[in-house]
């Protein structure tokens, strides 16, 4: 057993309101630079949709991730042979038009234009060429299902969904969608690291953050192809690849990453997971249907004596072990089994987990008699002649899992490599928590029914209360359990402190010597 610690994340998709605050926080801190304007290390996609870059999930186009051939896993579009042969021209590289051409507007024209018959306008100009352009695409062009025929119907996850089912999905009255915020997954088996010919990309041993050394990157561009999530970006100005750094300077000083800190819906959780590094390859090579299970299997129980002992042997700090025991990620992923990796079939063992959305809450619409309430109202009050109520507490509710508006198959193709049972399990638990809490707070659900759904979902009432508390009421410190980076050691991640000790004090990186 080779126990290592990993900073992992959970995004609760039912809570995401699609406001893009995370993207803006990230953009303002990290990618507001020439060559990086088009990069969104954090982006929020509407699902169904083609995403950013367009159709990134379709590995027939981009050849990202790992594939299993003859029982072993190989990089699909890169690797030692393919990477070095294709080094002069990478046939599977997404180009700027697959993302979008970055643009701004000539705002000064609004102020400085001479007087004339027409209103001055701010024309869009390309941030690459500086010339006026017609904007054809943006980072979230298909937000909220806009342009549905062009975008949502092209979603690669629609592959296995029959045309009839698709029609149902896009009927206006039944239309449903959800948001998928994405950052780098800081995978356990990162394809970007494996594909980098220069060896510039590496995983930090202490916390598992995947970084690109800008001094070593030589723009061979293989990581952009290899990352199946397309979270490694090419900076066309500097000629280097860049990616999400999980705000490691913030994490080292105990702060949540900017995207998570700013999250309005408070959907994001971050904490430590302990895992067995010696079984990574085995987990990534499992059969497709076992991938979710094999990935969860190598995540270790931080309360287990044996695990704690070997973690200590491996140099995992006590503070990190405590953080692992209080980790919201461990609870969501392992204890409660609610969170799943995005596209496990890419075999990179992503360390960002998603709680699939219920989408929309299963309910029936039933007719009621509202005449008594209407009569009680004052003559001035608005009287709704709507007798239909959206009822989430009926008896039929439980039987409706297969009739949900959004095809189960679609969610399964995102979060469980197509295994619908895995999603059903999660959904059952999420519904059981709701029904249980409705019994507690509203009281219109019978005890037998609530107990029945809880036992059917395989959770206890205490567990349901804990899930409810961590989902709806968590404080900042409960959402983000960040282990001490040990500041004194964190500084040494960047610099050797002995260099300037006994020298000229703060501010110099090189030893201070007298002039000649």
């Amino acid at each position, binding site marked *: 057993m080779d126990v290592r610690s990993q900073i992992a994340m959970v995004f609760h998709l039912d809570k995401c309101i699609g406001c893009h605050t995370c993207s803006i926080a990230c953009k303002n801190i990290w990618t507001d630079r020439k060559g990086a304007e088009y990069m969104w290390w954090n982006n929020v996609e509407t699902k169904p949709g083609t995403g950013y870059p367009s159709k990134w999930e379709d590995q027939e186009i981009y050849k990202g991730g790992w594939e299993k051939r003859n029982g072993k896993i190989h990089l699909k579009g890169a690797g030692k042979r393919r990477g070095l042969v294709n080094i002069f*021209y990478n046939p599977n590289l997404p*180009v700027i038009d697959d993302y979008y051409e970055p643009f701004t507007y000539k705002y000064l024209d609004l102020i400085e234009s001479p007087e004339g018959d027409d209103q001055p306008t701010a024309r869009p100009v390309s941030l690459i060429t500086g010339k006026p352009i017609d904007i054809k695409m943006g980072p979230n062009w298909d937000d909220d299902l806009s342009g549905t025929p062009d975008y949502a119907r092209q979603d690669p996850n629609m592959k296995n969904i029959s045309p009839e089912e698709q029609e149902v999905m896009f009927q206006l009255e039944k239309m449903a969608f959800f948001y998928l915020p994405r950052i780098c997954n800081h995978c356990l088996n990162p394809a970007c690291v494996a594909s980098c010919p220069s060896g510039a990309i590496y995983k930090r041993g202490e916390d598992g953050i995947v970084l690109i050394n800008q001094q*070593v990157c030589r723009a061979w561009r293989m990581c952009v192809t290899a990352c199946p999530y397309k979270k490694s970006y090419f900076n*066309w100005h500097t000629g*280097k690849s860049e990616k999400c750094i999980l705000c490691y300077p913030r994490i080292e000083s105990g702060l949540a990453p900017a995207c998570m800190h700013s999250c309005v819906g408070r959907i994001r959780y971050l904490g430590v997971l302990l895992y067995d590094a010696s079984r990574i390859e085995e987990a990534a090579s499992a059969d497709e249907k076992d991938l979710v299970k094999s990935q969860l299997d190598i995540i270790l129980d931080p309360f287990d004596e044996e695990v704690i002992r070997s973690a200590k042997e491996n140099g995992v700090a006590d503070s990190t072990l405590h953080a692992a025991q209080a980790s919201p990620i461990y609870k969501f992923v392992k204890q409660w089994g609610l969170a799943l990796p995005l596209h496990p079939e890419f075999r990179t063992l992503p360390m960002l987990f998603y709680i699939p959305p219920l989408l929309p809450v299963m309910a029936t619409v039933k007719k009621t008699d509202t005449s008594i309430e209407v009569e009680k109202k004052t003559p001035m009050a608005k009287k709704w002649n709507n007798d239909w109520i959206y009822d989430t507490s009926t008896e039929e509710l439980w039987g409706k899992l297969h009739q949900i508006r959004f095809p189960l198959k679609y969610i399964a193709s995102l979060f469980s490599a197509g295994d619908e049972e895995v999603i059903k399990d999660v959904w059952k638990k999420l519904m059981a928590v709701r029904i249980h809490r409705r019994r507690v707070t509203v009281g219109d659900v019978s005890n037998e029914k609530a107990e029945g759904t809880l036992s059917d979902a395989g959770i206890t009432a205490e567990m349901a209360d804990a899930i409810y508390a961590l989902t709806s009421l968590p404080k900042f410190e409960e959402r983000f359990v960040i282990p001490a980076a040990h500041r004194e050691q964190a500084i040494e991640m960047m610099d050797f*402190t002995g260099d300037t000790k006994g020298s000229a004090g703060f501010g110099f990186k090189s030893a201070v010597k007298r002039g000649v």
Partner: protein
Amino acid sequence: MDYLDNFILIALPYIALTVFLVGTIYCYTNRKFQISSLSSEFLEGKRLFYGSVPFHWGIVVVFFGHLTAFLLPKGVLAWNSQPVRLMILEITAFIFAISMLVGLVNLVIRRYTTARLKPVTNYMDLVVYILLIIQTVAGLWIAYNFRWGSSWFSTLLTPYLYSIFKLSPDTTAVALLPWPVKLHIAGAYIIIGLIPFSRLMHMLVYPLNYLWRPYQQVIWNWDRKKVRNRRTPWSLQRPKNN
């Protein structure tokens, strides 16, 4: 002509090699961030194929051809002792040189007719293009007109190049060569001297190391087994990743 000959054949190689050595070592140790293949495939990914691929495979074969004649002159002469083998060698080299020229022309046209590539093009790129075109055309001209280059390179140029490296330049034989050959030699030296100042730097960092390194890389900032041991002296070594 003697002054010019001496400059091209004696002064220029030493200037070029000195600049090359000092410049590349300085860049690699102090300006590492600036070393990059500066790929523009991201901004224009279709026409690049017809430029980059023929150019690079062409120049790789031609370069290693020259290198073989420099390192193994006897081997090349032995190979050339039969006319058929000589023809195979010369024709192969010629075809790859043509491929290089075609690729180069495509690259130049692509770079100067694509609006998006203007912001990532500088004057040094133009200098490199011009030099490479002159060099390639001169090389093809020599190969066509002064046959058979692979043989006389091994008998004439290799001893001269050895004499340069032995610091006792002997130009008696080389000085008699026609001017296109001298142009080709001068071009080669200038290109070598320009490597640290241009995008040519990327050819020195071809990632051969990738062949034998393991796929996954994990960097520990400190020795994780020693760091918890209180008997370990504080900060044994520099962190490895900066």
